[in-house]
């Protein structure tokens, strides 16, 4: 009996140690483990923080910047959403577009995050070979009522380890959804027109509080 107790204690310590060790060494982490760790971390923080739930814009954006952004490849995301127009753009335009797109996604994601309350995330088994460099991590958000929301990630392995470059909510890929918008803005006012439209949108979002529909409880 004593032996088993010791074993359990040891295992717990090892587990705790692993959890700590995993945080900086994300390069050799499996993609689904990475996504799971980030989302758990973010959700736990969001659930525990009253300021975030109240819609404190600065705090939410802070959380997104520190916990999520290091694992997202915005440049690739933007390049994919811009499609063929990406290659025609100057490096300056590419940089500006990436920055503005990134800002928009941070605002949107922060808005979504401030609505997290009773949801739990459930991950599905990863279907990928060990040497795959592009995988899809699939999960679902279980809501207190109603159908679960599918939430999938496309993750690619690069020099800095795994990075997310596309997200699927409710069956729609983010990049694919923005692609049409980007193309039609570009057809109206060129690449600069798109950058301008995004910049204006972000300005508007920056001056508006998050979570305007916060439930009054």
């Amino acid at each position, binding site marked *: 009996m004593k032996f088993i107790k010791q074993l359990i204690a040891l295992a717990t310590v090892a587990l705790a140690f692993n959890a700590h060790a995993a945080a900086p060494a994300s390069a050799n982490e499996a993609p689904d483990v990475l996504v799971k760790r980030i989302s758990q971390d973010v959700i736990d923080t969001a659930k525990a923080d009253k300021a975030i739930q109240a819609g404190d814009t600065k705090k939410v954006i802070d959380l997104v910047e520190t916990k999520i952004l290091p694992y997202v490849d915005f440049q690739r995301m933007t390049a994919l959403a811009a499609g063929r127009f990406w290659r025609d753009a100057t490096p300056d335009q590419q940089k500006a577009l990436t920055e503005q797109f990134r800002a928009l996604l941070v605002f949107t994601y922060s808005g979504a995050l401030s609505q997290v309350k009773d949801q739990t995330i459930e991950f599905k088994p990863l279907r990928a070979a060990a040497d795959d460099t592009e995988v899809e991590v699939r999960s679902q958000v279980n809501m207190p009522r109603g159908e679960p929301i599918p939430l999938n990630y496309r993750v690619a392995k690069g020099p800095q380890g795994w990075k997310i470059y*596309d997200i699927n909510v409710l069956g729609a890929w983010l990049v694919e959804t923005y692609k049409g918008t980007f193309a039609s803005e570009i057809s109206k006012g060129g690449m600069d027109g798109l950058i301008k439209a*995004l910049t204006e949108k972000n300005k508007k979002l920056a001056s508006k509080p998050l979570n305007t529909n916060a439930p009054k409880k």
Partner: protein
Amino acid sequence: MIRTAKPFRQAALALGVTMMLAGCAGPNPRDPYEGFNRAMFSFNDTVDTYALKPVATVYKNVTPSFVQTGVSNFFGNLGDAWTAVNQFLQGNGEAGMSDLSRFALNSTLGIVGLFDIASEAGLPKHKEDFGQTLGVWGVQSGPYLMLPLLGPSTVRDTAALPLDIAGDIWRYKEPVYIRNIGTGLRVVDQRAALLDASSLLEDAALDRYEFIRDGFLQRRESQIHPDGDGPMRKPAKDDDMETSAPVSSESATKELNSGTPAAKPDSQ
């Protein structure tokens, strides 16, 4: 007289709608009726802004949350029966049995569906309609269609709508005034559940019409092919616009997939 005039009026209306649709071909191949759809979209938006959304906001803020849960469970449970029928039509026997069990369990132990005890018992809720069934049977979605009051749809899903309406149990509720009150409550409750999502959508979209359209079409496709075997799920594939690009679509796709040279350095 009135009775004979009615079919004519309907035919004339249908003809008028068809002509309107044909008259406004847009540039997007999946949305040839963009002009009509945008008009409907702004009509729906106006109705929403001035009628539905304010009512739903009050409902959400005033009604105790257990009442809201009860309302949405009650109508959700009625919907489960039609979902089960569609599961069987699609050949998903297992999921169909699960949805049937949900309906049986929630209708009885869950007190006419007010409590969703089946979800807690490990039977997750699904949602299948006849448009999805047609999709599984191989019917293409056809162009995007924005329906008045009902919102985004496709030609296929619109054709399936009469059956979905007939499959709605609440439709047969007597007396009629209870049915009408219930239908109103259901609409308000569903809108209330979407309040947060719709405010998010406003933040995320440059052009809300396009954003909803492109998201909706993908979502429908994924509901019909949940495992990603649908034609829409190819990642990072350049579409028809590739024709005017200087490089062939093949190399472009490859380039994007491997990350453009400019995309290599870390964005952080």
